[in-house]
């Protein structure tokens, strides 16, 4: 691993270390910008979409953690 790759990896680990969380946060901010600054969508719609994508990111990364695991308890 060269220095540049190492630095990028260290930055990624420092910032989130989780591709799903990073992607969800970036999508939430990008969509928020598009909705509010370009499409001039209503404030409530933008707020709900922004929070929903953050929540979706959290749920998806947790789903990945249990993927393939047997249910230990009912």
């Amino acid at each position, binding site marked *: 691993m060269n220095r540049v790759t190492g630095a990028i990896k260290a930055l990624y680990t420092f910032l989130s270390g989780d591709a799903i*969380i990073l992607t969800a946060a970036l999508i939430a*901010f990008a969509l928020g*910008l598009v909705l509010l600054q370009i499409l001039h969508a209503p404030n409530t719609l933008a707020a709900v979409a922004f929070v929903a994508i*953050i929540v979706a990111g959290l749920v998806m990364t*947790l789903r990945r953690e249990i993927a393939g695991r047997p249910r*230990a*308890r009912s």
Partner: protein
Amino acid sequence: MSILNGPLASVVIAAFLASTVEFVEAFTIVLVVGVTINWKSSLAGTAAAALALVALVGVFGTALVLLVPIAALRFAVGLLLILFGLKWLKKAILRYAGVKAMHDEEAIYEEEMAAMRARGERPSARLDPFGVATAFKSVLLEGLEVAFIVITFGSAATGAGSRATGITWAAAGAGAALLVVLSLGALVRAPLQRVPENALKFVVGIMLTSFGTFWGGEGLGIHWPGEDLFLLALVAFYLALAVALVAWLRPWGRPQVTLASAERTAAHAIEEAH
């Protein structure tokens, strides 16, 4: 004769109340970083942010309001806090659901201290980049907001004499707010130190995600209902969500085995094997 006339008194009170909200927000982050990571990192981040603030105010003065893009700053800080917050919250949820092993903090702490003593290190000598960065950006953002409050409220008090007088009294209001928040913080610090680390990390994950959502949303241009009070609604929302996620994941969790006890068992097994 009263020192403060009507308009000046209203400037002091308005600056005090608005600054209190901002100082509480910054202090919450400084406090949780101090308690969960270490005070050296938390105070280093705070000191660096205070120096940056002094430099910014010293260089730009009242023109700061025009030159610093506060929306862009909220956007960047919000994004980083959401990333940090979700990372912590994810780990805390997995631990509480039993999917990941719980930390036995006391045992781990003792082991780490013993290892550090053996290496001749002092625990307080370690600066944690995450802790420093989190405290730094929170204090910088909130400090800038306080500077904006002082400058705008002070400048608006045109009926109170000169602009400089208004700004001086607004700064006095903000200073009083800082003293109140620091005094209250000193009172809650000791009880917080006794809260288990896992519980604190769970709360910190929720707080960072809530603050990140709030500031990031403001940076995007979202107007939260009730303004800063909406932070409490976000905290309640993320707390309810986290509790629901723990309940959802629990069927996949193992019976709880602490990390330290697992390590002790593993070490014992290795010794036996030799």
